[in-house]
């Protein structure tokens, strides 16, 4: 099978972070990793990412704004021809930082917001006062004219707040809401009690579809819950699917991959099976030849229910959850609720 270009690549530029979130996939702490890519190495990686034909790079972390050369990296990504966006907790975005990001050419930013109120957000993010700082950061980004989206993590105990978060995002002028299902990867493994139940996921999906159907402009996307697309196709008229819904996962190793601060390449930020190391191989080589990626790209290798499912090309199961639970890249997604009849299109 011919290797296609990734649509997007995320590059966690640093492990360093000023927060200590309970779900942090990158195990971020208050210091950089000893093997962290320096400025020259980071620029070389960005150039190689562009050479694969990738269209979009996400600079995240850790908290990317902890890196003093971040504006230089944004400029370099833009000059390499990549649409350049950032994932941030928002707390360090002062008016000056927002202006410097705009001047460097940042095209959009995703800001994590994990509650509809300060208490919920701060408890999950591990810092009292984070909520206020994040809201101020959002306002500063808005003032600087940079597009932004809000990114909440769904979790057991407070997932219902996502609707209120989406309402706030809309009021603030966000272009999109990208919802992440809680995946027990990285530090998230230690807090598996936050995983939603299957019934909670099913209710969420119905709310998600209802919200998107009611919208003209706001775009909702969801990461970690690929069954959503099968539900969309089963329940939404074709015209509406074509005009309102965007399929956003699971693209791990197929259209997307992640490079960690220490050079490790994963299929996805929450599917932490090593595919290579940019200290040892070029990113282009890893993208094209990694055995891990080859397995994920062949949907005929899927096993059990996922292998029998007519939606395997557009869903394929949450490979991240499957890997976290079984260590297999190809086993069936045990959290999928479809019965045999529902696997048919």
């Amino acid at each position, binding site marked *: 099978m011919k290797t296609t270009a990734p649509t997007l690549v995320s590059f966690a530029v640093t492990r360093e972070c000023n927060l200590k979130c309970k779900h942090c996939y990158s195990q971020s702490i208050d210091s950089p990793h000893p093997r962290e890519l320096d400025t020259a190495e980071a620029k070389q990686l960005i150039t190689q990412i562009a050479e694969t034909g990738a*269209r979009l790079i996400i600079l995240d972390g850790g908290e990317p704004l902890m890196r003093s050369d971040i504006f230089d990296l944004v400029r370099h990504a833009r000059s390499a021809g990549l649409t350049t966006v950032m994932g941030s907790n928002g707390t360090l975005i002062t008016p000056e930082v927002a202006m410097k990001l705009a001047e460097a050419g940042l095209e959009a930013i995703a800001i994590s917001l994990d509650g509809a109120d300060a208490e919920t957000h701060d408890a999950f993010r591990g810092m009292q006062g984070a909520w206020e700082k994040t809201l101020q950061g959002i306002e500063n980004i808005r003032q600087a004219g940079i597009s932004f989206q809000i990114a909440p993590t769904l979790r057991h105990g407070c997932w219902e707040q996502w609707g209120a978060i989406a309402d706030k995002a809309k009021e603030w002028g966000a272009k999109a809401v990208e919802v992440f299902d809680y995946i027990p990867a990285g530090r998230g493994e230690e807090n598996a009690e936050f995983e939603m139940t299957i019934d909670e996921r099913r209710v969420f999906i119905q709310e998600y579809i209802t919200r998107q159907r009611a919208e003209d402009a706001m775009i909702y996307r969801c990461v970690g819950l690929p069954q959503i*697309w099968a539900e969309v196709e089963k329940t939404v008229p074709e015209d509406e699917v074509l005009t309102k819904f965007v399929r956003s996962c699971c693209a791990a190793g197929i259209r997307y991959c992640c490079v960690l601060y220490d050079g490790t390449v994963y299929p996805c930020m929450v599917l932490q099976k090593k595919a290579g190391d940019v200290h040892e191989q070029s990113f282009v080589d890893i993208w094209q030849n990694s055995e891990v990626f080859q397995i994920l790209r062949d949907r005929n290798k899927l096993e059990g229910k996922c292998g029998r499912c007519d939606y395997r090309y557009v869903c394929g199961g949450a490979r991240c959850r499957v890997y976290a639970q079984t260590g297999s890249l190809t086993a069936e997604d045990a959290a999928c609720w479809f019965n045999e009849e529902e696997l048919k299109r």
Partner: protein
Amino acid sequence: MRSMPWDENLWRKLKDAISPMPPFVRQQALRTIVEASEALAQERGSGVVEEEDLVKAAKTKIPVRSRQRMLDSLSEVGINVEAAEGSE
């Protein structure tokens, strides 16, 4: 959007292929490739659009700027973009 019959499995694959694109891009991409595929099916005297029409349309009628992206998307959903005739 369709003005003639399609192999339904192929139509589904095309919808799958364009589903990660933003809606405003997708509308234009879909219109272009549907019209071109149907024209190619008619040229070869067929009443049904088949995979070879779709791939040839992607290789010849999609603007160069977006062509590889469309071919990649078709490949991702299991369409053999190497098999059909057409110049990339």
